Structure formats: C-alpha cells, structure tokens
C-alpha cells in the first residue's frame, strides 16, 4: 500500500500538481505588493463581571457569583464559541482580513477565517484563547468579527477542516454548528445552556438554507492590536435572564426565537427578536453589550 501511495504521489508531482498547492502565509499571498506582513496575537478573554470586578472564566471547579437576574452562584461546565471573518480596520476605514495560522483551533479559508475559543480547563485537553494571525503592516484602529461560523462552512458534513472538526460543536438537528456552547450549573438548580446557531434550517435537495442565521457582527472601535484584548462578558449576556428557571422545553436557550429563555439574551446580542429573522437590529449589531475591548484585567479566581 505504501508503495502505491508513493507512486501516486510521484505521478502527481510529475503532473505539476504541487504548483497549485495553496499557500497560507501572508508573505506569499502579498508578495506582489510592497506591503510586508506582521504577526498579530490577539487574546480573547472570557470573563464574568460584577461591581467592577472581572473574573476570568478558566476553571470548571470555580464558583462564579452574582450571575443572571436572580444573582445566583454557578459553576461553568463548558464555555466555547466561534469567531469568524475577523478583520482589522485601518485609519482610512479599509477592512483587512486577518490571516490566521492553521492549527487545531484556527482555519484560514478563502475570503474568511474561523477561530474556535475553548475555556474548558478541568480536563488536560488543550484550550484556546488566542487569535494567532498575520496581517499586512498598517495603522489599524478597529477590529471586526462575527460570533458564529460562516454560512459557507456551517453545513459541511464530517469536515476535514481545523476548528470546524471539533465534534462537540456539532449541532446535528439543525445540520450545522453550535456557535456558542455555554453550559452553566447554577447552585441548586438544573443545568442552563446557551447554544446559539443558525435555526429554521431546510435541506433543499442537498443544500442547507437557514431562515434565522443568528450571527452577530461586532465592531470594536479604538482597538489597539498591540495590547488590547477582546472580552466576552458572560454576566452581560445573562444580565436579565433567570438561569435558575427554565421557560421552555429545553434547558436554557438552544437558539430558538420561540424559547423565552433566548429572548433576553438575544437582546444583549442585539439580535432583533421582533423581526424573528435572527438578524441584528439595523445593519449591524452595534447595540450588543456582550463583547467589549479589554486589557487582561480579569482576575484569576481559580488560584491557578
């Protein structure tokens, strides 16, 4: 078998296939222009906040206090989400797509990128809180990204694609991916989930179309890529939600605009619940309060 594979590879080489190999490095893609690229590392902090104190989400065994409208304590069983189509905006207002490096948590696709963030730390498995990328040198003043998986990647079956191949993020019943997998264990009550993803999906003889995309496009102005972080604040997301009660058949919010548990969280993400189309109010999600600019200010309360 190995011999077979070798001869196939050899033949392929002789046919000149190697020339069409996709090269993901920014240098290579930009080598026809004079712009040089530079490495960019942007950290994404998951935290909960209360009375001006910021607590990093990074441990399954830590109890986080004052969560939700009923001010309860909870441990965090799972905390993952996808960001995609991450772009920097320069001082002239030009958008430049970040080129992320292929890794277990990152995928660079044609015209878009995808990064999975994972804050589950009780197991020995790896986690990720970093966008590891490169970008053409320039004077950047803002960052833009989408909470969610791009439409073109969302419905691929059994993908051999980094980040997308994490089976825990599969959302089989909507033939796509969970954009967020946030699972809380409030003290004294049942598990509360926040699973966001495209809903109302339909298979049209092989191609999947979803009525409610539920993707959130976020822009953070005055963002310094050399030192600022992107913050995902759980406390803001569930500020007006009672995580100790369940208002639908599913525990918490499983992405449905019909589930009362979703309505208050969707407001925080600026998803227009009146339009029932899973899109943000206006042309963007500028009223969202979950994401903000930070500077590694979260306090590590797990003692790690």
């Amino acid at each position, binding site marked *: 078998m190995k011999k077979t594979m070798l001869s196939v590879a050899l033949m392929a080489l002789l046919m000149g296939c190697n020339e069409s190999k996709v090269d993901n490095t920014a240098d290579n893609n930009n080598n026809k222009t004079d712009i040089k690229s530079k490495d960019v590392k942007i950290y994404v902090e998951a935290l909960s906040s209360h009375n001006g104190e910021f607590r990093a989400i990074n441990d399954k065994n830590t109890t986080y206090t004052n969560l939700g409208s009923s001010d309860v304590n909870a441990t965090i069983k799972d905390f993952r989400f996808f960001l995609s189509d991450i772009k920097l905006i320069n001082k002239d207002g030009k958008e430049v797509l970040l080129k992320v490096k292929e890794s277990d948590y990152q995928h660079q696709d044609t015209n878009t990128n995808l990064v999975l963030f994972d804050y589950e730390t009780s197991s020995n498995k790896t986690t990720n809180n970093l966008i590891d990328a490169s970008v053409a040198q320039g004077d950047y003043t803002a960052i833009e990204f989408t909470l969610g998986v791009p439409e073109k990647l969302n419905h691929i079956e059994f993908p051999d694609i980094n980040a997308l191949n994490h*089976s825990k993020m599969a959302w089989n019943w909507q033939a796509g991916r969970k954009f967020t997998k946030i699972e809380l264990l409030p003290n004294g009550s049942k598990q509360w989930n926040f699973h966001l993803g495209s809903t*109302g999906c339909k*298979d049209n003889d092989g191609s999947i179309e979803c009525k409610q995309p539920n993707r959130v496009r976020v822009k953070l102005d005055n963002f310094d890529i050399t030192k600022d972080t992107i913050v995902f604040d759980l406390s803001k997301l569930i500020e007006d939600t009672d995580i100790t009660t369940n208002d639908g058949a599913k525990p918490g919010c499983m992405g449905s605009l019909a589930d009362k548990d979703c309505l208050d969280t969707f407001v925080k993400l600026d998803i227009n619940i009146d339009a029932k189309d899973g899109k943000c109010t206006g042309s963007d999600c500028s009223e969202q309060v979950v994401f903000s600019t930070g500077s590694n200010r979260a306090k590590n309360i797990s003692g790690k």
Partner: protein
Amino acid sequence: MKLKTFVPFLALLFLSCGSQTTVEKQTDNSDYKFKKLYGHLAPVVPKQNPISEAKVELGRYLFFDKRLSPKNNISCGSCHEPQHAFVDKIRNFGEDKFVNSLNESVGGVCIKCHKDGQIEPNNTLPLGTDENTIIRESMGLTNAAYYTSYTWANSALGTIERYITTPLSNDDPKELGLVSEHEDLVFNRILDDETYQKLFQDVFGDDYIVDQKHIVFALSSFIRTLISFNSPYDQYLAGNHDALSDEAKRGKDLFFGEKAECFHCHSGGDTRFSDSSKDIKTFEPKAFFHNTGLFNIDENGSFPEGNRGLFEITTDLNDMGKFKAPTLRNIELTAPYMHDGSLATLHDVLDFYSNGGRVIENGKFKGDGRANPHKSSLISKINLNEQEKLDIIEFLKSLTDYSFLVDPKHQDPFKKR
C-alpha cells in the same frame, strides 16, 4: 484487492489535480445492486457515500453493536428491531396492557405519556443509554432510503448520513450517547476488534480510519438496504387477485378514494405511502409536514412544548404540530401510533381520522384538535362507519411484508442462532 484500489484512485487523482477535493478511498466499487422488486426504482445514494456489499455488511455489524454506546448498553438495533419492522420491542407487550393504561387517561390521551407535561418512565416510549425516555416513538426504518426528510419532523435532515449523527451523538435527547468525549473509548473498541479490522479493511482499505464519518457511512449504507416491497398488496398489484381479501380490497378503494383520502399524504411513487419520498427519477423531491389535529392547547393550535413538530426547527407558527407522514408499509407492526405513541391501535387511528382530529376534554392538554388553526385542509370529519374502518385496517395489514422481517441480511450478527 490492492490493484483494484490503485487504478480508480490514480484516475481520480489526475482528475482532481489542483483542487482541494478529497477523494474517499475505498477498495470496493459500488457493487451493491438494489433488488428490483415489482419494478420499483432504486433509492438515491449520495455521491460521497457509494454503497457496496462490504459496506452494507460493516454497517450491519455496527447497527447491532452495543459497544457503539459508550455505556455498552444499547445499539441502533435496540430501538429498531428487524422482527418489529425496525421499531422497538417495548411495543410488543400486547394491546391489553396499553388499553389498561389508556383507561387511566383523560379524554383519550395516554396520561402515562404526558403526566403534567412530563414524560414518565415505564410507558411505550423508547429509552436512551441513560435509561432516559425519548420524547418520540422510534420511527420504523422500512424503506428509509426513500425519504426526503428524516426523523418525525426535521426539514434540515435530508439524508440518512445527516440523520444518523443525531441518534448516535446527540446530547439532548441522548440516545446512544456517543458524544465527543467518549469517541476515543468507542473507536478503540472497534479498532481492537479483529472482526472489525477485516470488515473495515474490506471497505476502506488497509489504511482505514475508525471515526464518526466512516461509522456513519457504513450505518447509512446498511439502513439504505432495508427495502420492503413484497407484501400481499404488492403481489395483488402484480396480478395475484387472491392476495387481498374482499375487506382489504374495499379498504384499498376507500384509502385511494375521495371519502377517506388517505392517499393525499400517504402517497409517494404510488406505493411508498409517504409524500416525503423520492427515488432516482423523482423530479424536484420535497419534504412535506402536516398538522393532523392531534392537539389544540388553549385553542391557539399549540402542541405540547418540546414536541411541536416542525415548529421546533423553524419557530414558524405555521409549522406548529406538523409532522412527516411516515410510510404505511409494515404499519401493522409499529403500534402505538403517531409521533408520541398516543394512539394505541390502528382502530384508534381510524377513529381519529374519521373525526377529523382529537378532542381532549380535560387536563393540561385540553383542547379541540379538530379546530386546530394549523390543521391540514385535507383532514376533516369524514364519518367512516365501523365496517369502513375495519376494511381500511385490513388493507393496511396487507402492507405487511413478512419476508422483510426475516431477511437474513437484516438480522443481528451478534445473536446466536
């Protein structure tokens, strides 16, 4: 075997030169031939998962293997048993017991199924790996290959491949429970098993991979072969007029006639008995979902929360209470009926359709299903008399295919014979 691999693989490589398409490496050559029973057209086989004898055989082993559940306690075959037309044996307790449980019911609804809106154990609904009750009856797999949509009500699942990941690895409801943190455990069980080493090699070659994709591809191939077109009714259509009783013949005329109108939804390629059906020649295949008036909670048309049919997927009120019309082939063997098992017998089903819906007089689900605003316009009060109901039941029983139940190729390979 190796030579057989080499030639097509090489050819494909040349064709896909420079593109990012990955070619599924297989030693088999799509050699599976669907039986041509009474001229029925073959089902659609997705391009990415060609079907072969070897893959079907691997799928049969996986289908009946409890080791696929991390707890090693249930397999696909636990809820889809061949002798019960691939539904679960929990239904095989005899009608008396079910009728007794119905006697405790309110307004004809089995309260054991929906006590205070909670699903109770020890009812007719199937159980998952944690002995958790699944909210819906397991669907029969008869002619599953021909459906345009899978499960009771899901517009997003258009292939068996997409559907299988749900019972296999879903968190909620948990069926087999093969969630990602247990994948290594289960895949290693298969990797270490000599029988599987040979079966996987036969299908995917020496460098085979055991993962969700390859398991799903093999399971899908097996399920695609569960084809049933050899009932007395098929023999009748082929010219054997004695294959149907007089009652069944009268029932057939009612079924396809304008009084009972069953055929509007239970259609599909003439005798597949589901409108959500397709074959290799179907023009623009579609999936359909219908509200038949089972519930009408608070007169708003609502169905019990969590079990509201297509609405659960689309959150469109027009989809409230809409479910797929399953095939009626082997329907005699799949009691109790409807998505929630709330009708015990075929006679109950005929009573229900004759009335044009169900009235629940008391309790949490109180409401006149006949007046459900989302009900299909094809369901109305048709006042079948007792003889007409019995005739239609006789016709439905003529759709039972005993050769399908005992086909050796459908049986559990782990069972001692």
